[in-house]
């Protein structure tokens, strides 16, 4: 696969991935566009620039691993994995349909190049710790990245895992909070305010980086800072916009879990042209 550190190229890939997400979810007539669109630059920067991985050898022992703990946002992961060459692009439109490898939430039985089956929130960070510990035992350079939602981290297991990783200094682990500020029932600040979020992670022993989550060069710096840090896990709190890139989806709780209509799809694709 082609990798790149060029910001303009990563931005161009990001725009293509947004189009894929819209087309997949419209065709499926259900799914979660908002949190897929907020995570585009994060997932694209990881897969095309930051992570050491090889789509031709998906079970390479020393690969970096990515776990989408907020599993409902799998359309962006599928689109990026297909773009990398892990799985067929021409089947992306089968999302959520009977027999599709692109299940409604990530399912390793159907898509073995996934690192984890997710969908029940709050569980990916513990899995990531396990993978990071296995790499440490094997003296492997493998690093593990876990993407969490800002709604998801209301789950108690996240804080059990945060306490473990901070105390045990699991420094080959990076958590990313896609802080798009909206969850299913509305705004995070109204449902279960998490502020001061960085302070919470810091007090659990994590190195904390806050970053604008659609700024690719800022993301590159954040990931480089995490890679250089020893003896501490890093959490990147990425401030993002839910529905980013499509005006009528941005900051609109309706598009947490509602598919665009065909008319809305046309408007969205026109904006993403």
């Amino acid at each position, binding site marked *: 696969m082609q990798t790149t550190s060029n910001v303009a190229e990563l931005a161009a890939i990001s725009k293509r991935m947004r189009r894929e997400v819209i087309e997949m979810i419209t065709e499926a007539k259900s799914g979660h566009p908002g949190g897929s669109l907020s995570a585009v630059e994060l997932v694209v920067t990881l897969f095309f620039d930051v992570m050491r991985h090889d789509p031709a050898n998906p079970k390479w*022992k020393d690969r970096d691993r990515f776990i989408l703990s907020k599993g409902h946002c799998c359309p962006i992961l599928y689109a990026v994995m297909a773009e990398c060459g892990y799985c067929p692009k021409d089947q992306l439109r089968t999302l959520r349909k009977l027999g599709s490898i692109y299940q409604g939430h990530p*399912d*390793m*039985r159907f898509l073995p190049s996934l*690192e*984890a*089956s*997710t*969908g*029940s929130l709050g*569980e990916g*960070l*513990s*899995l*990531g*710790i*396990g*993978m*990071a*510990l*296995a*790499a440490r*035992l*094997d003296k492997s350079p493998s690093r593990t990245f876990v993407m969490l939602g800002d709604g998801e981290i209301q789950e*108690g*297991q996240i804080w*059990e*895992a945060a*306490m*473990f990783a901070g105390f045990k200094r699991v420094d080959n682990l990076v958590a990313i909070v896609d802080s798009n500020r909206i969850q299913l029932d509305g705004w995070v600040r109204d449902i279960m305010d998490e502020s001061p979020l960085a302070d919470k992670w810091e007090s659990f022993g994590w190195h904390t980086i806050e970053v604008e989550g659609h700024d690719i060069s800022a993301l590159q710096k954040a990931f480089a800072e995490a890679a250089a840090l020893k003896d501490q896990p890093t959490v990147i709190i990425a401030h993002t916009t839910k529905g980013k890139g499509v005006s009528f989806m941005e900051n609109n709780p309706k598009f947490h879990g509602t598919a665009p209509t065909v008319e809305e799809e046309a408007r969205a694709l026109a904006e993403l042209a």
Partner: protein
Amino acid sequence: MPAKTKFELKTGLATREAFGKALAELGRVNPNVVVLDADLSKSTYTAEFGHAFPQRFFECGIAEANMVGIGSGLALGGKIPFASSFSVFLLNKGFEQLRLTAAYPHVNLKIVGTHSGISIGEDGPSQMSIEDLSLACSLPGFTVISPADEVATKALVTRAAEVFGPIFIRTGRLKVPVIYAADQVFEIGKAIQLIDGSDVTLIATGLMVAESIRAAETLAAEGVSARVIDMHTIKPLDRDAISGAAVETGAIVVSEEHLADGGLGVRVAQVVAQTHPAAMEFVGIDNTYAESATPEQLLDKYGLRAVNVAAAARRAIARKR
């Protein structure tokens, strides 16, 4: 007087202690074995492994959900993790994680619950695991093992590390009689017939196996020929052993230190219903939680003794066609 059998039933190790010893031995022969515990390693006996192999031992604190998730992650990273706690915490607090991260993706995670059943005694019902077999058996693809003594525990723990897939092994706190010779061979999913008989079959698991042997001795003194089967693997069940018992003895008693509704008994009944009709009786805990007392008092009060098994056998035989 009960008739003598070849079983001396001398008191041996608790199955939790046999597990701890087997685990430490596994650590010596297989560098891929790793162990997780949730602040109970002195009680689950994983501490012996922890002392011998500190790099491969992960103390998770009192956080079972996270422990199970980390265990699954270690398995996905190529390790053979054994996560251990009291069965009641492992299965109940870790259940969602066992479902999503172990059963559903079918990962190579082993979980070993100790302090199962009511024979933990004085600590009382909050610590007593009487639902764990039904919970574990409900998970697709899980293998569920319930050894009866120290020999079975050692063999089955060792075997669990050799086969791929999620496995629950249920052990107890109480010292239990030794049933097997040290060289007995165990195969996951293959029941062991301990005594042959033609009038009734006593199928049991865990500490109820020894009670069933004693019940067979009592019945033999009455002229009743009882077959005794150790169903050490609850899932997958040995269907041939069950249907054979139904055909050849026509009466079956299933005994378990677990809720009678949901554990081994109902699963055996399902096989009987599908294969050959037989009169059945069930010895287990009857839709209730127990209480604090000595293990012996509790096993008496809640009807988990040879005398209960023998009485159930007489009822089943009376209903035979």
